[in-house]
């Protein structure tokens, strides 16, 4: 057997065994279908969920909140991070407050968010923006500070003004950091949206799986979880693609 097919076989072996055992155990009734519904039932339920159009609506709602909240959070963090990285006095102004707020998980803001913004999209946007804000901020500051001194000297030597240096040297050399901050940020945003929908929004994927629990539809819970997983994978893949495209010059420079 060639190395490749052997590797493929090893890769699928454990998942297939798990699924088969799970199916058999559920079918024999050894475990209640409410605790662990058979995978075949989950697949059927997932298909129903998709075919009814409900999944598309939920996914669209969650995605809308993720992107909206992320745009707000990253949109505030990016300019602030650039300023804090470039100007020490701005850093001294904002750093203490941000250091106090940063360790508080965004989820801990849920009660306040509901008090401030009520229910629905506004508190979700707030929480997601908060979740995306810090990874983008911290990475942007690091990116600006890690600009190579030799590039600054070269630019100055070629007659570049401070503004040109900021725009054409500091900004692009901070880009790898900014983009990895955004990738982390959107991952956090996706976690926060599910929790926000479980508490403050009555729509979306997070709301749907919590709703299914009330009816003991464990097959639908798992179907919803699978959908969440797929969307998370797609978001991360898209972010990876955008990064790779913007950082063509960077590939292979670092691990």
């Amino acid at each position, binding site marked *: 057997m060639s190395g490749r097919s052997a590797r493929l076989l090893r890769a699928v072996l454990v998942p297939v065994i798990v699924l088969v055992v799970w199916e058999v155990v559920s079918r024999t009734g050894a475990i209640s279908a409410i605790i662990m519904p058979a995978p075949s039932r989950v697949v059927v339920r997932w298909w129903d969920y998709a075919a009814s159009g409900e999944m598309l609506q939920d996914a669209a709602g969650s995605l809308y909140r993720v992107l909206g909240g992320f745009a707000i959070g990253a949109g505030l963090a990016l300019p602030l991070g650039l300023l804090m990285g470039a100007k020490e006095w701005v850093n001294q102004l904002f750093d203490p407050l941000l250091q106090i707020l940063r360790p508080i998980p965004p989820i801990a803001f849920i009660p306040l968010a509901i008090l401030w913004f009520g229910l629905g999209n506004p508190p979700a946007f707030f929480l997601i923006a908060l979740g995306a804000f810090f990874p983008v901020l911290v990475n942007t500051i690091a990116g600006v500070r890690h600009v190579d001194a*030799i*590039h600054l*000297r*070269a*630019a*100055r*030597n*070629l*007659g*570049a*003004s401070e503004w*040109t240096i900021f725009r*054409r*040297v500091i900004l*692009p*050399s901070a*880009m790898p950091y900014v983009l990895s901050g955004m990738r982390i940020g959107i991952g956090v945003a996706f976690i926060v949206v599910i929790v926000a929908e479980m508490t403050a929004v009555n729509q979306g994927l997070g709301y749907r799986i919590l709703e299914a629990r009330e009816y003991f539809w464990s097959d639908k819970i798992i179907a919803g979880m699978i959908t969440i997983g797929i969307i998370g994978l797609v978001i991360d893949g898209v972010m990876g693609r955008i990064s790779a495209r913007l950082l*063509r*010059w*960077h*590939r*292979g*420079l670092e691990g």
Partner: protein
Amino acid sequence: MSAPPAIRVEGVRKVFATGGREVVALDGIDLEVAAGEFVCLLGPSGCGKSTLLNAVAGFSPPTAGRILAGGREVTSPGPDRAMVFQEYALFPWMTVAQNVAFGLEVKGRPAPEIRETVDSWLGKLNLLDFRDRFPKDLSGGMRQRVAIARVLAIDAPILLMDEPFGALDALTRRNLQEELLRIWAGSGKTVLFVTHGIEESIFLADRVVVMTYRPGAVKEVVPVTLPRPRDPSSSEFNALEKRVTALVMAEQARHERDERGAPAG
């Protein structure tokens, strides 16, 4: 009547404070480089040759004394004194052509002119096939060609070169040395070239300025009158190399004694 010197270094002293103690990197440096002259600064590491070059570039002002370039006192970096760094210092996010265009864009030149100048220099340095590549895809020798094209494109009257070929293999280095001489010849440009290569300095320079080890000062200025292209295997070249080697080795010995000696220096 002779033209005013392109670079004039007057009584330059440079003191660095490191870890609570002071190190005199340069002391009492007086040097004149004529317009169109090719001068090498030669010495062991720690002799302050790069410090002097950085002071001329305007990156690091002298503690005392002053430096004039083109008759004006140097207070900051400027495109009249273009620098080529040993580490190339290309912008990795820009293509070869964008790197070479940078200095011209900064000057606000019109786009068609920039394109023409860039392509002309890329052509002269055999880089046209690489114009849209990123620096990471180029070898060290090619990168240094791009860095040279980048400073030549802005047409600076003074070129400052900080061990530009130090990281290259011997063949590539000889190639680039010859190319540099070819471009310099008849260009009227003044070159101040830092190196620790004795052979390199004699191959390139009109005058070799041998520097002393700590504090850095001018030990001796050796004129090289051999006609170009110079043959490093000729007896005249060898005689000169021997003489300069003796000067440098005396300083190298002081450097090594210092390294072995008391850690407090």
